[in-house]
């Protein structure tokens, strides 16, 4: 099926009447997934938005419950659940894969997160495969393809004729039958794109399994400022904190994005901190991306979107790290370690 270019605003208006629709757009100085309303011009030509779409499912701060005492002095704890029908329209393959990673975290391995699940249930993912790539894009080195977004409900391919549309899930099929009046038969002609930035992931995970105590972490962490930029612009970083706001007799507990780069992320009562220095924090972040997540969920937690590569204030570049790991001697520093282990 084909969506002609000039029918796009009509389709978006149609969708916006029944759901919150987010499209990539320039808003002031930012590029982001903006709430669509009639007249907003989506920008499908720009590369990744500066912030990922993760806050639609995992807001930077999300109320969980309100608490307090009623007039009889009895305590109450009232959960706050909110979710709306939402369409994420024109999202790129890397960000789609990031939702697959978040689904693994919040919906599998035990508990199905009660704040994430309803939002996810009501989200329709309409992917647009990439029209172009940025110099920092490297998704095809991370097992993805900029020309396809298999995890999306609906996939769009943009050609000169318009957008070729394919439903990939039941949810997608149901949506397409609703979109019928905007669609016509046809296909779009489009040249495949590929990333210019390449890294070789072959054997990286296996090497990292043996490199927990490797001196490379001291070397690369030196320039890290331990700010939270990489984790906040990352579409897959999902760690959160839980805290509260109190006003007189009423309070609200909420969760908010947290970052493994911050020292108080792991600091316990009594000030014991297993990751007090920046070396263990930097190591944690990269091993979580490239190693631990795969052990747990069978996926790499880096989708190659390149946002951290772009935004890191000191150019601590995960692709450079991957190259360095590829070139590293796993045994380097082992003799030092041996001694340390014996001396405890």
């Amino acid at each position: 099926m084909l969506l002609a270019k000039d029918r796009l605003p009509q389709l978006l208006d149609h969708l916006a009447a029944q759901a919150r629709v987010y499209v990539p757009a320039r808003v002031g100085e930012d590029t982001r997934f903006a709430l669509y309303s009639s007249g907003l011009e989506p920008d499908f030509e720009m590369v990744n938005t500066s912030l990922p779409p993760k806050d639609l499912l995992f807001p930077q701060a999300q109320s969980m419950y309100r608490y307090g005492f009623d007039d009889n002095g009895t305590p109450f704890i009232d959960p706050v659940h909110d979710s709306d029908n939402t369409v994420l329209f024109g999202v790129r393959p890397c960000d789609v894969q990031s939702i697959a990673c978040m689904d693994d975290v919040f919906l599998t391995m035990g508990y199905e997160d009660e704040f994430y699940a309803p939002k996810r249930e009501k989200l329709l993912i309409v992917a647009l495969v990439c029209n172009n790539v940025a110099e920092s894009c490297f998704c095809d080195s991370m097992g993805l393809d900029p020309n396809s977004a298999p995890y999306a409900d609906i996939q769009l391919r943009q050609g000169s004729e318009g957008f070729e549309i394919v439903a990939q899930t039941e949810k997608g099929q149901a949506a397409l039958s609703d979109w019928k009046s905007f669609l016509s038969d046809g296909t779009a002609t489009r040249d495949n794109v590929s990333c210019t930035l390449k890294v070789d992931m072959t054997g990286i995970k296996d090497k990292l399994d043996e490199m927990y105590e490797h001196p490379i972490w001291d070397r690369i962490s030196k320039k890290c400022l331990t700010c939270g930029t990489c984790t906040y612009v990352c579409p897959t970083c999902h760690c959160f904190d839980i805290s509260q706001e109190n006003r007189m007799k009423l309070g609200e507990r909420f969760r908010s994005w947290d970052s493994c780069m911050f020292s108080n992320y792991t600091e316990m009562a009594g000030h014991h901190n297993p990751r007090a220095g920046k070396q263990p924090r930097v190591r944690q972040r990269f091993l979580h991306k490239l190693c631990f997540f795969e052990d747990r969920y069978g996926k790499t937690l880096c989708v190659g979107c390149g946002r951290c590569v772009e935004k890191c204030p000191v150019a601590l570049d995960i692709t450079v790290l991957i190259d360095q790991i590829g070139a590293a001697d796993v045994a380097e520093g082992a003799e030092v370690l041996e001694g340390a282990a014996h001396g405890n």
Partner: protein
Amino acid sequence: MSDIQTTLRTRAAELLSSGEVVEVIGWTAGRFDNQTTPAFITKAEDAESLVFNEYCVNTTSKFSLMERGLGKVAVCVRGCDSRGINRMITDNQLKREEVHLIGIPCTGMKDRKTGEELLKCRECSYRNPVVYDELIGESVTEPELNRFDAVEKLEAMDQAERAAFFDSVYERCIRCYACREVCPVCTCKSCFVDQLAAGWQGKRSNVAENKFYGLTRVFHVGDRCVECGECQRACPMDLPLMLLNRKMIKDLDLLFEAGEAGLDAEGTNPLGTYDVNDVEEFM
């Protein structure tokens, strides 16, 4: 500039092989064209990887704090870096004898994407290092400029406009604290935002909380800000942080003749000092 790089590499190798310093903090090439990244050179043979060109956007001063205790460290300093070092000495964060300063006059750094001179460099009035142990390259002429242009525009706004402006800035802040971490005068062992038990700063991300963070930080660094502009460069959301810092600097100068921070290692703390002659217009 390539002469500076050649001399820098030679001097770094000499300093390291003579044992005068244990490390040289400078820049090396990044992955992309026209990109550099902070470098920490510990072996003379690695000095060849040092780079100095018009894309050395990172200031070096903050890194010298992280390397304390290793031994004497050589730090490449331009005007902005050297003022940071001076101020850290004033603030008792660093001792002058802990660092060997390789001064490098600077003609301004460029954004690697646009090729334009960085805003922080366009607004810089100290391109030559104000303190150094040795100088590489020729001193450059300091530009004549009014660095308060943007502040004056801010001051010309009416109250409602100004409030709207601050809101528009802080609704975009993501509270990654890059501005704090990169700042040479943000050296508190425990930042007020991290004192969760005291509850100064909530973890919600909204205009009110973000503004509270941003404006408190401005107050906290205002009398010590060395105007390196690194906060603004590091900000992933491109917030105009130096505008706020400069408003503070301008007011402090007006009220307390605070002058410019980091020009020497003596320095003053207008906001931390009481003087009977202080302006007390609110009393």
